């Protein structure tokens, strides 16, 4: 008889544990209803597990790490966006006191790349971020001086600087292996029904073209890493600001020409990544590792902001061409699209991004006849890469603008057009995926957002105000116009059929009752460690304080893929749940013996294991953990979660693309100064189908951040080029929203009953920003009566309908 433990009333109340245990696949709760009070730890806004170290400044970022004898690495980048390298003279740099090595491509011990971008370019540079030589020196100042002392003889070559130039007949070819400048493996078609028949049935057909811009992630912490060599066994340890430590590990192994297991990567606290700290970190760590091994000393590299702008992958610009047809009643009959993105000089993820783009091209609408072609082209500019949303924000901007334009052509309310065609349970997507066995709450979600924003009344009020203002001339206030716009989306959760979505989690119970958790997926600041801790705490029935989270260390957990595609909670959480469940099973067996009952009779909450319905028969989790350990039981588990296979037919683009989809509806309200073109985003209301919010506070945090990032994309952010040169490589001229610019933001966490994710959670991180620019663009069109089909909607575009370019090149109109 072990009655010592005390159960709080709170725990008793919420400890009807059955629903949790039998939750996967989930039992029904009505869609759109919150699940408050059913859980002890998940679905609660518990503070982030890393909050205190961050707000007190104790968190260590990669640039904060120092080792005795450490050297500082720097890279010499190309002066030209396209040139042949005739000679590199490093003698002056080598002769400088304090310089320990100066290396060029011929000195690399391994290969030049683990993909297509280069650690060091040899004969030819293809964009201004290409590195030609690198230096390790006693101080950052000496390294900088040494870089300046390297002499490179170039033969400048003509380049390709826009989608149009890349596709032109006889265009110069950026990469030998990419004929016609089409980036390898990036063409993804979708064929459903027969568009010719669909257009024949249509009463209204419109054709439109939209464009989006190059965007920089603009994380607050520029790239940084330290590589420490171990001269004894030839291994290296890498400390870095990394989104994907396993990708970095592969890169470093290739750079060194060594075995993957000899590269030990430890992720540091990340000051933001958003998809950015992937390739660029592989390159940085590979270079630092080569210099560390060469000199036998630790090497630190920290990018300046300018270096970060030059080399880090950007959000791909898209040219989006559409032809869409509908019958008078607003049923869309056919949708044809050609989406071309600018891939830059090397292939960085366009092949994956474009797959996601092809799946989502037609938006969250059921359309019988679809023909989509997505492909990327090479130019002599910085390559595009992953950035929050992974092509969707660009694609949705075009497609949701198109919906408004189609509604206008039909003389129909754009909301009605959306509702008429919106996905419902049982709808078939453009890729032929019948939406069954998952929640599809889109229509109700849109209605909820319309209600909460009082959409129709506000739209009418703004319309009246505009009419009145048009009459009264003179007063500056009379030149301000308000407008409201809406955008909706669906987003495949996790990686889907794009690539293997399997991942692992490690849960280990210590003999003091604390629980160590490790994932192969990273906390990039999004709060993944907290979400994982909540999932494990909930499942084990312990307090969140009992969970100890350790950052990703590539030598202590298998490669579980990249922390991308909003899969950290959705996929990674499944692995955590699986591991916790198995550990719990072992512990309950021990507890059952101690409490003289069946393991099936037990449940747990707040660190106490007790008999269901008879909490007086209880024992602490700690006692059980201790007993289990000292009786030699396995109370740790590495759990590998493998989602079901999703077959994909590439030539037709047909297949169940994702296990489930998250839905969003965003409404933006803006005020436009008609005389200056200044757009003031007043308010953004963002409704997101989150399945269930593991942590509502963090979920809202994602939405606030998504709104800020989305408004940057909508009205101000743009990497400007003069041919291949970046004109605004720092925050004096690359403009992102400040706290003063961010609009009033209203998140709506719409919960739906979806059986796929852990505790019914769906993906949110990227969905949180993907509709925002589209909604703002629609609001600006409502306010001004003019449609601008190219982002960002900056002063010049809004006033003049076009951008003004200060540099050379580009086909931007």
């Amino acid at each position, binding site marked *: 008889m072990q009655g010592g433990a005390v159960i709080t009333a709170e725990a008793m109340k919420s400890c009807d544990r059955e629903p949790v245990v039998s939750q996967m696949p989930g039992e029904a709760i009505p869609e759109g209803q919150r699940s408050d009070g059913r859980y002890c730890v998940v679905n609660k806004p518990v503070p982030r597990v890393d909050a205190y170290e961050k707000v007190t400044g104790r968190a260590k970022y990669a640039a904060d790490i120092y080792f005795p004898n450490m050297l500082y690495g720097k890279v010499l980048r190309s002066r030209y966006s396209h040139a042949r390298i005739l000679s590199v003279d490093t003698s002056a740099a080598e002769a400088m006191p304090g310089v320990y090595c100066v290396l060029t491509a011929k000195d690399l011990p391994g290969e030049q790349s683990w993909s297509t971008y280069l650690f060091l370019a040899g004969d030819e540079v293809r964009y201004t971020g290409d590195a030609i030589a690198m230096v390790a020196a006693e101080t950052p100042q000496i390294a900088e001086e040494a870089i300046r002392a390297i002499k490179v003889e170039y033969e400048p070559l003509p380049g390709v600087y826009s989608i149009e130039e890349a596709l032109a007949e006889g265009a110069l070819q950026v990469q030998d292996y990419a004929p016609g400048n089409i980036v390898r493996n990036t063409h993804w078609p979708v064929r459903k029904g027969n568009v010719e028949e669909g257009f024949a049935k249509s009463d209204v057909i419109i054709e439109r073209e939209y464009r989006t811009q190059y965007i920089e992630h603009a994380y607050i912490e520029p790239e940084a890493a330290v590589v420490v060599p171990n001269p004894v066994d030839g291994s290296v340890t890498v400390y870095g600001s990394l989104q994907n430590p396993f990708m970095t590990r592969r890169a470093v192994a290739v750079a060194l020409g060594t075995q993957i297991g000899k590269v030990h990567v430890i992720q540091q606290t990340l000051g933001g990544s958003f998809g950015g700290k992937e390739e660029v970190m592989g390159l940085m760590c590979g270079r630092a590792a080569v210099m560390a091994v060469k000199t036998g000393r630790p090497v630190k590299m920290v990018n300046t902001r300018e270096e970060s702008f030059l080399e880090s992958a950007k959000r791909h610009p898209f040219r989006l061409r559409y032809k869409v047809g509908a019958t008078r009643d607003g049923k869309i009959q056919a949708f044809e699209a050609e989406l071309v993105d600018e891939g830059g000089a090397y292939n960085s993820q366009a092949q994956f991004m474009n797959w996601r783009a092809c799946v989502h091209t037609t938006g969250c609408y059921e359309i019988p006849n679809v023909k989509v072609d997505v492909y990327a082209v090479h130019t002599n500019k910085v390559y595009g890469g992953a950035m929050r949303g992974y092509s969707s924000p660009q694609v949705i901007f075009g497609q949701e603008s198109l919906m408004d334009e189609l509604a206008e052509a039909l003389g129909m309310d754009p909301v009605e057009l959306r509702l008429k065609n919106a996905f419902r349970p049982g709808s078939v997507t453009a890729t032929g995926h019948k939406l069954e066995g998952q929640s599809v709450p889109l229509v109700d979600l849109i209605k909820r957002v319309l209600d909460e924003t009082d959409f129709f009344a506000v739209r009418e009020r703004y319309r009246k105000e505009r009419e009145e203002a048009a009459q009264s001339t003179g007063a500056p206030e009379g030149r301000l116009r308000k407008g409201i716009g809406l955008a909706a989306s669906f987003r495949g959760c996790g990686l889907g059929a794009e690539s293997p979505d399997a991942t692992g989690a490690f849960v280990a119970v210590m003999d003091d009752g604390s629980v160590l958790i490790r994932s192969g997926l990273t906390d990039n600041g999004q709060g993944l460690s907290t979400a994982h801790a909540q999932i494990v705490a909930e499942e084990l029935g312990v307090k969140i304080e009992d969970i100890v989270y350790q950052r990703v260390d590539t030598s202590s957990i298998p490669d579980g893929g990249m922390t991308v595609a909003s899969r950290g909670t959705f996929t990674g959480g499944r692995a955590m749940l699986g591991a916790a469940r198995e550990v719990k099973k072992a512990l309950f067996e021990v507890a059952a013996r101690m409490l003289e009952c069946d393991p099936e009779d037990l449940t747990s909450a707040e660190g106490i294991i007790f008999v269901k319905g008879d909490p007086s028969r209880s024992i602490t989790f700690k006692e059980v953990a201790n007993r289990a350990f000292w009786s030699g039981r396995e109370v740790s588990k590495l759990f590998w979660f493998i989602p079901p296979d999703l077959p994909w037919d590439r030539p037709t683009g047909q297949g169940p693309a994702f296990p489930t989809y998250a839905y969003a509806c965003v409404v933006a309200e803006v005020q436009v100064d008609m005389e200056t073109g200044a757009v003031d985003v007043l308010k953004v209301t963002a409704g997101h189908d989150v399945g269930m919010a593991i942590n509502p506070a963090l979920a809202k945090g994602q939405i606030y951040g998504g709104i800020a990032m989305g408004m940057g994309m909508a009205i101000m952010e743009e990497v400007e080029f003069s041919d291949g040169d970046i004109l605004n490589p720092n925050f*004096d001229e690359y*403009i992102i*929203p*400040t*706290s*003063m610019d961010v609009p009033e933001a209203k998140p709506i966490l719409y919960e739906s009953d979806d059986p796929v994710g852990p505790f019914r959670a769906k993906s949110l991180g990227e969905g949180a920003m993907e509709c925002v620019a589209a909604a703002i663009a629609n609001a600006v069109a409502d306010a001004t009566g003019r449609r601008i089909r190219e982002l960002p909607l900056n*002063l010049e575009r809004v*006033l*003049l309908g076009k951008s*003004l370019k200060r540099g050379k090149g580009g086909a931007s109109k």
Partner: protein
Amino acid sequence: MKPFEYLRASGVDEACKTLAAYSGTCAVIAGGTDLLVALRSRSKRVEHVEKVLDISKIRDLDFIEDRGNEVAIGPLASHAALAESRVTRKYAPILAEAAKTVGSPQIRARGTVGGNIANASPAADTIPPLLTLDASINVRSTSGERLLPLAEVFAAPYRTTLRPDEIITEIVFPKPAGRYGHSFIKLGRRKALSISRMNVAALIGTDDEGTMKDVRIAVGSVMPVPSRVSAVEDLLKGQKLTDDLAREAGELMSSEMIRRSGIRWSTEYKAPVIKVLTRRAIVQAAKRAMAETMNVS
């Protein structure tokens, strides 16, 4: 970052001697919010700089004073101080308002008015207001002191008429006496921490009937250097403001811009928009003048 030697002066005389000793290779640093940016990017503007003389610890240069008919400001007065000082808020609200729009709280705390002037950026936010206040600056060197109207300080973008051995020791302007209204309008690409795409300062004195007796209008990032625009001022002087007149003033400003700055990549945008900003500034300043209860001084 361009390497440099760091020196510090504890008084104005010492500073002048140091500058004289290292003629042409030593730059003064106050808040450093312009100079360090230029050194870091190895800008052409600091090609000659080998030494940096820190004047930020010279207490005598940090003040904002009411001197009866005049206001005197030390070059080390920060933008935050200009924005908060009772003296500027009372006698030069146009300057206080402009200072409040500079950068961010951090930049306003470090950046100084002397630095803003000496840096001579076309987009400097305190210069057009100071021009409308008819400010002059006192500059010192080992060879003595001279008083210079602010309007004569700017030679070209980022170039002043000061000699490299001179430092600004004071900014002075007469208090506007009578019924005055002001307006400072800054157009940027976002609401804060934004460099002016264009700015307009208007200080208008009227009589009780609303006739504009004294009209002072200065613009930034419109002309090659920040300047008063007398053509526009003359158009308004002696008139009562009407919508049409305000509009006409805007048109004139726009053509003055093209006349003095030529056609540039940005003109297609700036030409229509400077009309608007000028019109708005004039209307706001004139309205405020009429709403003003007479300044008793």
